[in-house]
C-alpha cells in the first residue's frame, strides 16, 4: 500500500501517463444561461470536436450554492496534452461568451486509476454525483487504502457502478480528491444501492469481516474538519466534445 502513496507523491511532481483534467466553475450571469449554453455548444463544436483538438466537457451543477451554473472540464490523456494553448478557440470564447459569465478557480486533477472502476458502459450516464474530499496528508494512507480497496471490491464483484477517483494536483487548498459516480438518471442512482451493497459484501470477503466498516471509519477519520462536500452534476453532451468510449 505504501507504494501507492509514494507513487501518488511522485505523481504530484511528474504526471507522465495517467489522464489529467482541468476544471473551473462558470458562474453564469442572471438571465444569460440560454445564450451561454448556445455559445458554449457552438464554440465546442467549432474548436473541440476533432480527435486532435482539446477535449472539453460541460456539466450543469444541480446542487449547492452554484446550482444552475456550469462546470467545464478539459481532459487530456497526459500532462503534455495541456501544453497546447488554443489561441483561436480562446479568443472566440472570450468574444462570444466571455461577458456572460465569471470564471471561478482553476484546478488540476490526475486520475487515480487504482481507486477507479469503470464497468462496461453501453449508454450515456449523464447524472453525476461528485464527492469532494479534503484529507489530512498525515493520514493519506487511510484515505487511499479505503478508496483503492473499494474500487477493487467493485471490480471483483463485477458491479455496474461506475466510479472514478481523481486527486487534485494543483489549485486546491490542502490534499484534495474527488470521486465521481455516474448514473443514467435518478432512478438509476436509486438502484445503485444494490450495487453498493454487492461491493461492500465483496470488500468484507476480501479483507475480513467488518473490514468495510473499519476502513470506512478510518477514511472518515482521515478527513479534515468539513472535509467532505457533495455535488450533483448533469453532463451536457451538446456542450461537450464527442465521447469516444
Amino acid at each position, binding site marked *: 500500500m505504501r507504494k501507492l502513496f509514494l507513487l501518488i507523491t511522485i505523481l504530484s511532481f511528474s504526471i507522465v501517463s495517467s489522464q489529467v483534467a482541468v476544471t473551473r466553475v462558470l458562474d453564469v450571469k*442572471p438571465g444569460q444561461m440560454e445564450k451561454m449554453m448556445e455559445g458554449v455548444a457552438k464554440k465546442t463544436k467549432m474548436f473541440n470536436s476533432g480527435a486532435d483538438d482539446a477535449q472539453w466537457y460541460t456539466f450543469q451543477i*444541480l*446542487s449547492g450554492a452554484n*446550482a444552475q451554473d456550469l462546470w467545464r472540464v478539459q481532459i487530456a490523456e497526459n500532462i503534455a496534452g495541456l501544453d497546447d494553448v488554443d489561441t483561436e478557440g480562446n479568443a472566440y470564447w472570450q468574444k462570444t461568451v466571455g461577458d456572460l459569465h465569471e470564471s471561478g478557480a482553476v484546478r488540476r486533477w490526475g486520475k487515480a486509476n487504482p481507486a477507479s472502476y469503470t464497468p462496461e458502459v453501453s449508454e450515456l450516464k449523464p447524472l453525476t454525483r461528485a*464527492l469532494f474530499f479534503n484529507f489530512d496528508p498525515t493520514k493519506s494512507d487511510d484515505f487511499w487504502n479505503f478508496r483503492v480497496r473499494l474500487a477493487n471490491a467493485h471490480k471483483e464483484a463485477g458491479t455496474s457502478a461506475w466510479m472514478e477517483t481523481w486527486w487534485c494536483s494543483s489549485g486546491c487548498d490542502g490534499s484534495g480528491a474527488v470521486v465521481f459516480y455516474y448514473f443514467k438518471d*435518478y432512478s438509476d442512482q436509486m438502484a445503485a444501492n444494490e450495487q453498493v451493497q454487492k461491493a461492500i459484501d465483496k470488500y468484507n470477503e476480501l479483507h475480513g469481516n467488518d473490514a468495510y466498516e473499519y476502513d470506512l471509519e478510518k477514511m472518515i477519520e482521515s478527513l479534515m*474538519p468539513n472535509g*467532505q462536500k457533495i455535488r450533483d452534476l448533469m453532463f451536457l453532451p451538446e456542450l461537450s466534445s464527442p465521447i469516444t468510449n
Partner: protein
Amino acid sequence: MKQILILLLSLSFSFSYSQLSTRTIEVKSGQMEKFIEMAGKKTKKYNNEEGSARFWTYEILTGSDAGKIWRMRAASSEYMDNWDSNSEESQYWMKNVGPYIKNGSVNGNYMWNYVGEMSHNVDSENQNHVMALIYTYKASGEQDFWRFRERVVAARKAMDTAPKGSMHSVLCSSGCNGNVAIILFEYESFSDQQRYNQEMLPKMIEKYNELFGNDAYEQDGEKVDKALVENGRGRMHLRFIPEASSD
C-alpha cells in the same frame, strides 16, 4: 443503533428513495402576500396528487436570509427524471409566481435525506412555528452527533405527555459543504416554544437520563459539542405557510 450508524456513515455512498430539496427565494419588495397567494394556487393545483412532487413553504424569520422564502420539495426519482422546464406545472409557476420573485433570486439547491430513525413524528396541529438547528459536524464526530439525536428521540417517545410538535431530522446529501444536518422542531408560536423549554424540556432531559444513565444528557451533549466543526452550530426560525404548501 449500530445498523443506523453504518447507514449514516455510508450515506455518501448510498442514495435515498425520496429526495428532499430546498431552495431560498427572494420575493420582490411588497409582494409577499401575492407571492404566497400564487404559490399556493400553483401548489394546490399541481402538488397534491399521488405521484406529484410535494412542496412545503416557509418564511425565514431570523438570520441573514430573514424575509425570504424557504421552499422544500419531496419528489420521487421518477418525478425528478421526468422534470421538464416546459411542463404545464413549470410554465404555470413561471407565468404566475415568477413575476413576484426578485430577478435571479432563487438561490442554491440543496438535497437532503430524511432520517426517520432520528425523527419524532406526532400528530401536529397548528404547529407552524419552526426552530431549525443547523449543525455541521466533523466526519469523525458522526457517531457522537447521531447518538445524541437518537437518544433524544427515545426520550421524547418515552415521555408521559408527548410534545405537541414533531421533530424532524434531515441530512444533507448534496450541495452542502461538510456534513450538515438540520433538526426541525415544531411549535405553535414563540411563546409556545418558551413554554416547551420551561416545562417539557426538563422532563425530556429527566427521561433521557433515566433511560441512558445519570448525566447522560450532559455527557452526550458535550460529545456533540466536540463533534462539531468550528462555528458548526446555527439556528433559524421559520414560519410554515400551509396555504402555500401541499396538503
